[in-house]
């Protein structure tokens, strides 16, 4: 904070330095305020003749005051005795202040008990609230019931079967009497249920990489649910250490939401890293 230079003409040649101090503003002391902070401002010239403002902030701390009985004060001056009287280094090293800060650990942090259930119910709430999530795969009705509880299940079954069960029916020829996997059997409720389930997992699935180690599933949910209802969040964890492996998946109910999330969050700075968000590629083996 150098102020304007003093012109050389103004300088007195005879006594350089010392006497110039009268040109400086007087020192100012501000405080101490409620937090014990005291500001001292004074000015000086540096080597080049620049005026320098020096602000020193100090904290004034009141030392704890205790009452000690006279006897205790007298005991302070007692000579050491026994093993302590040797006065060597070993004796002094017996007492050390812990390098570790120890806290009185509350059985539950204030408010934490209330937080935990709310977080989980939150997740649940989004699942229930997003009635769009509840899509019956038998009748295609939205938000009314789950597939397993479809009242039109039998109806749909018979309607659906003739076209889809053509192949399996041939396989299921009693004459051949070979083993037929349950899902290919004629009376199977879900003709290609297994396949369907797997596909559902990959649907609108977004892969997020370059996650920081501290990121957990709730964090990811928090980040992604802004774009629309999320059906699944998964963060890959190292099985041995339990720490994050730095990537995860988020499934959206709506494909458009997933697209939006990818366009917005790819390259987004999260924690200290830049996220890489893309469509998840389906597993090659299945």
């Amino acid at each position, binding site marked *: 904070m150098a102020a304007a230079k003093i012109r050389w003409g103004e300088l007195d040649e005879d006594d350089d330095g010392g006497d110039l101090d009268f040109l400086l503003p007087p020192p100012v002391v501000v405080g101490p305020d409620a937090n014990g902070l005291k500001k001292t401002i004074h000015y000086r010239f540096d080597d080049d003749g620049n005026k320098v403002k020096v602000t020193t902030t100090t904290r004034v701390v009141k030392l704890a005051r205790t009452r*000690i*009985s006279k*006897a*205790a004060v007298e*005991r*302070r001056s*007692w000579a*050491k*005795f*026994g*093993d*302590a*009287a040797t006065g060597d280094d070993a*004796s002094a090293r*017996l*007492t*050390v*202040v*812990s*390098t*570790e*800060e*120890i*806290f*009185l*650990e*509350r*059985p539950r942090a204030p408010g934490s008990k209330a937080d935990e259930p709310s977080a989980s119910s939150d997740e649940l709430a989004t699942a229930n609230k997003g009635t769009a999530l509840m899509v019956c795969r038998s009748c295609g009705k939205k938000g009314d019931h789950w597939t397993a509880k479809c009242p039109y299940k039998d109806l749909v079954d018979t309607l659906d079967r003739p076209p889809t069960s053509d192949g399996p029916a041939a396989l299921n020829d009693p004459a051949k009497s070979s083993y037929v996997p349950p899902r290919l059997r004629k009376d199977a409720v879900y003709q290609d249920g297994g396949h369907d389930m797997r596909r559902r997992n990959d649907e609108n699935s977004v892969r997020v990489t370059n996650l920081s180690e501290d990121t957990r599933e709730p964090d990811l949910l928090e980040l992604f649910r802004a774009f629309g209802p999320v059906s699944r969040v998964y963060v890959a964890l190292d099985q041995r250490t339990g720490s994050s492996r730095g990537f995860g998946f988020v499934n959206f109910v709506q494909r458009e939401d997933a697209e939006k999330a990818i366009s917005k969050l790819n390259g987004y700075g999260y924690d200290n890293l830049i996220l890489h968000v893309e469509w998840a590629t389906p597993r090659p083996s299945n």
Partner: protein
Amino acid sequence: MRPILMKGHERPLTFLKYNRDGDLLFSCAKDHTPTVWYADNGDRLGTYRGHNGAVWSCDVSRHSARLITGSADQTAKLWDVKTGKELFTFRFDAPARSVDLAIGDHLAVITTDSFMGNMPTAQVKRIADDLQDQTEESALVISGITGRINRAVWGPGNRTIITAGEDATIRIWDSETGKLLKESDKEVGHQKAISSLSKSLDWSHFLTGSLDKSAKLWDARTLTLIKTYVTERPVNAVDISPTLDHVVIGGGQDAMNVTMTDRRAGKFEAKFFHKILEEEIGGVKGHFGPINALAFNPDGRSFSSGGEDGYVRLHHFDPEYFNIKM
């Protein structure tokens, strides 16, 4: 808070005691030398050399002039607190376990273990002002208890003596006649050996800790159970806060099992409970072994714990401690 660690003992701690002004802390351990420390900064003031066995407990007179210690070398000794000089030795035919000075410091109750066929006893000794008059004679001998007496203390007004020990029963005796006055209810009382007993500041009630993983608060006159604090570790040490409605309970799994399990399974914290609500306030970690001794400073601003690990940890509470709301 940053506790002060005092490593003056080479063996597990057995007992801690503050003097009345709270400026000195006396520690007893299974090594043979009780030690006195300054309670504010943990500086070692001195040691009391002379015992030849584990020292189980100690007590200090009101004006911090004399210290009495009970040891497994079958003696109890009187010491000059200031110089560490041994003043007198009470000899017994069994290890001395617990010592406690009465109000006025002219009487002491000392318990002896069962040993070589002897029954455990609690003996009252007179403490003379002038050492010339000091005798070894017992003013009263209480016997008839089976199992070790882990703690014997004076009741309100020196009228009674309260004993507690391995048989899980608390008994109140008349200190004049030695007659048994009251016995704790077996139903509501402790189920396993009582390891520790600590009086409240006004001696109106006291707290016992037991291996049955609980601590119980009792009325010192009527011996009615007031409160029970349930924890998940065997309790070795208890104390009552002199200023707040808090009690501290310490212990941990048996020392012989410590190396077989994870450190966290040991539960070597000192647990704070609300005295009235019986609710846990918090825990203070730090020891590497079970806690054997606990003591509040008489000013209530600090407490110390002694562990099987040989350390005394002196904790000065943070300001937040005094504003804890339940």
